[in-house]
């Protein structure tokens, strides 16, 4: 089970200097990510979505409210909540295999078991044949596949993805999105992904949380039950896109006002 409940979460950053105001990054954020659900947090940059993801991972603590995973309040970082970073954050001195094995090694998983899990995840992300390469020998898309495999290999309850495809070119991005849908369906993992791309959110999500700009609050909580694969010319996809555009466009006006 992996039911993630964001319960009235607020985050205030204290002013760094005298005379500055405290920054309210998140205000009373409430939503629930159900078990096996793929949830996208959609919003402009500066809406606090990264802060929220960092709180889920345990890198930061909320100043108000709490996040629970299956009823337990989350604490410091733990392998039950792994993260995929926009800049991949692979260990450059470790081979692809050893990168994927990292979490298993620090967890003390026996070697035979470890090798089996690593091989399984190499296959899952389609990197067979690249096991002994070093990260710098791989393209951006392949690096992100490694990062996804590494995050899933420890069998977390929820995988957190921080704009994982933002640094990729359009073609690779689209390919990796399809792959992620396949991986999410194959592993049935609960996932939370941050994006500012409406298309990406529609392609991936079971649930889309649209966030407002500073302070970040939940503007809309939309369950997407359009069957996959989702064609761009599907009427339901077009309607959803319109709806999301309107929600996001509002935000831009708020920003200008």
């Amino acid at each position, binding site marked *: 089970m992996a039911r993630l409940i964001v319960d009235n979460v607020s985050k205030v950053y204290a002013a760094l200097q005298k005379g500055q105001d405290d920054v309210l990054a998140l205000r009373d954020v409430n939503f629930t990510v159900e078990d096996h659900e793929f949830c996208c947090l959609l919003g402009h940059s500066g809406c606090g979505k990264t802060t929220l993801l960092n709180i889920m991972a345990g890198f930061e603590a909320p100043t108000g409210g709490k996040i629970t995973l299956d009823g337990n309040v989350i604490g410091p970082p733990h392998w039950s909540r792994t*993260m995929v970073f926009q800049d991949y954050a692979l*260990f450059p001195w470790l081979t692809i295999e050893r990168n994927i094995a990292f979490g298993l090694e620090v967890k003390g998983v026996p070697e035979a078991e470890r090798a089996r899990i690593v091989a399984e995840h190499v296959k899952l992300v389609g990197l067979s044949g690249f096991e002994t390469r070093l990260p710098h020998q791989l393209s951006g898309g392949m690096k992100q596949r490694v990062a996804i495999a*590494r995050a899933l290999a420890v069998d977390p309850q929820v995988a957190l993805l921080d704009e994982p495809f933002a640094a990729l070119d359009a073609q690779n991005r689209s390919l990796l999105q399809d792959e992620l849908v396949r991986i999410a369906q194959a592993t049935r993992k609960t996932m939370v992904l941050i994006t500012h791309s409406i298309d990406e959110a529609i392609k991936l999500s079971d649930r889309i949380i649209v966030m407002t700009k500073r302070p970040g609050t939940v503007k809309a909580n939309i369950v997407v039950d359009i069957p996959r694969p989702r064609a761009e010319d599907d009427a339901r996809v077009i309607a959803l896109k319109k709806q999301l555009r309107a929600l996001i466009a509002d935000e831009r006006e708020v920003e200008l006002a």
Partner: protein
Amino acid sequence: MAGVTGAPRASRVAWLTRWATLAVLFVVWEIVAGVWLPKGRPELATLLPPPSAIAKAAVEMIGSGELLMHLWQSLRRELVAFLFALFAVPLGIAMGWWRGVHEQIDPIVEILRPIPPIAWIPLSILWLGIGNAQNQFIIFLGIFFPLLINTIQGVKNVEPNLVRAARCLGASEWQILKRVVLPAALPQILTGIRIGFGVGWMALVAAELVGASSGLGFLINDARSLLKTDVVILGMLTIGVVGLLLDLLIRRIAKRVLPWSLAAQK
């Protein structure tokens, strides 16, 4: 090495022109010191021996084993001092990682660091007498501080997301230090070792000039008192060449153990 690319012939020409000035210089030196000075100003000829005389001294001293003996004494001091100076690595990691440790140790480091190793020679002779221990202490100071400063910097420059990634994958504080911070800082630690070896090598010669009865520094100072200028220059050249070789060796090792690091390619 500068790029020796292009057609083999063009590269050969480039190679020749690269050494042309140096070759001309040697020829001029040989003529001035070997032919002109002995005729015109014989009293000065001893002060500037020609390259051929130095080469002759080299052959003799290598043959007798004397040069290698002094070289070995110097190298051994450098190596022993280096082993002690390696303590800078754990200390630097601790200082780079824990703010409290940095706050406590940094003032001490900042006071001691600007004192050149050579300035320690008088005090160290009083403390340790003349000999290996005193020499090694001076070299140790030369290696220790560059290594420490580079280690601290290396730790501070570790990508925060690497640490976060390790953390959320379940690594403990100790595992993060050992498996992430140390390897991530290693390129800069190796830079520190390179700089330290260089500074240490320079300090070594100074220490041996004053407080040793063997080693390359001793050799050139001893030869000076006997007015054997060919041996003085031979000793200097040996110090230079060995210093260069040490640096190349460390770079070779860095390339080998850090194939992933850009710093190792330089």
